[in-house]
């Protein structure tokens, strides 16, 4: 079993793609599902912050390490959201480190708090 430094149990919400928009608001055909993961959430360091465009630096962002594969919004999917300290953070960027780290296969994710119009 892989042990991640500072890991904790977090709840992930996964959303379906079936449904349609009514007056700009998505009406899903099925409710979202949830599951738990073991993950380590950490603040971004200075270099990681500088890689963001200026417009993105004011958004709450964290990085997360886990052995569970999560969804982003690529390819028509809906990004998973991770509950962390009472806030729902969206999974935005995936780095797959499984082939590169012997003995500690994991994914690194960039999480961001959705904008105010998350409705």
């Amino acid at each position, binding site marked *: 079993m892989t042990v991640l430094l500072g890991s904790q149990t977090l709840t992930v919400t996964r959303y379906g793609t079936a449904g349609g928009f009514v007056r*700009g608001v998505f009406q899903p055909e099925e409710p979202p599902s949830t599951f738990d993961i073991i993950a380590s959430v950490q603040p971004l360091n200075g270099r990681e912050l500088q890689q963001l465009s200026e417009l993105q630096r004011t958004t709450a962002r964290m990085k997360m390490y886990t052995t569970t594969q999560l969804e982003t919004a690529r390819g*028509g*999917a809906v*990004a998973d959201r991770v509950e962390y300290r009472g806030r729902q953070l969206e999974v935005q960027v995936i780095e797959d480190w499984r082939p590169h780290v012997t003995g500690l296969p994991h994914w690194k994710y960039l999480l961001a708090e959705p*904008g*105010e*119009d998350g409705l």
Partner: protein
Amino acid sequence: MSIPWYKDAVWEWVDAALSGLTVVFADQAAPMPSRPYATVQALTNVPREGGSPEFKATDEPIGDRWEYQLRYHRLVTVSVSIYADDAEDQAQLLEDSIFDPDTAELIDSLGIVVQRNIGGGENNFLYRQVGVDKFVVVDFEVAFSEVRTGQVDSIDSVVVTPDIK
């Protein structure tokens, strides 16, 4: 799921003004529509004070009570992101729409006022790219009013102060 009426009004204006685009609210837990589409986002969920509140009361008490009305003026910045091959033309269409008599009539009927968010330039389009996704962002200032009514024993007891810090 319910959304504030002024956001629904903004959606209706943008949907009417843009041609052939699906218009949705940004940052929902939802799949994005296929291009071309536009997202609408109020940049804050708490609108700003747009001026001093107005107080109006009945001339005479009704029974032993006075009826009053407080009108609060609100301002919110709305950002529209347009994902389309002709995104710049669509953004221009949206900006021009607020001067179009038919659209102006629609905006008026929706109970909002829309102004360009511009600092003196020809337009305030922002050209952005995330990955390979290019889009144009255009911001507007939207003003509206919220009215509260009530009854009091004495008009002097009504203290009119802004309710947003």
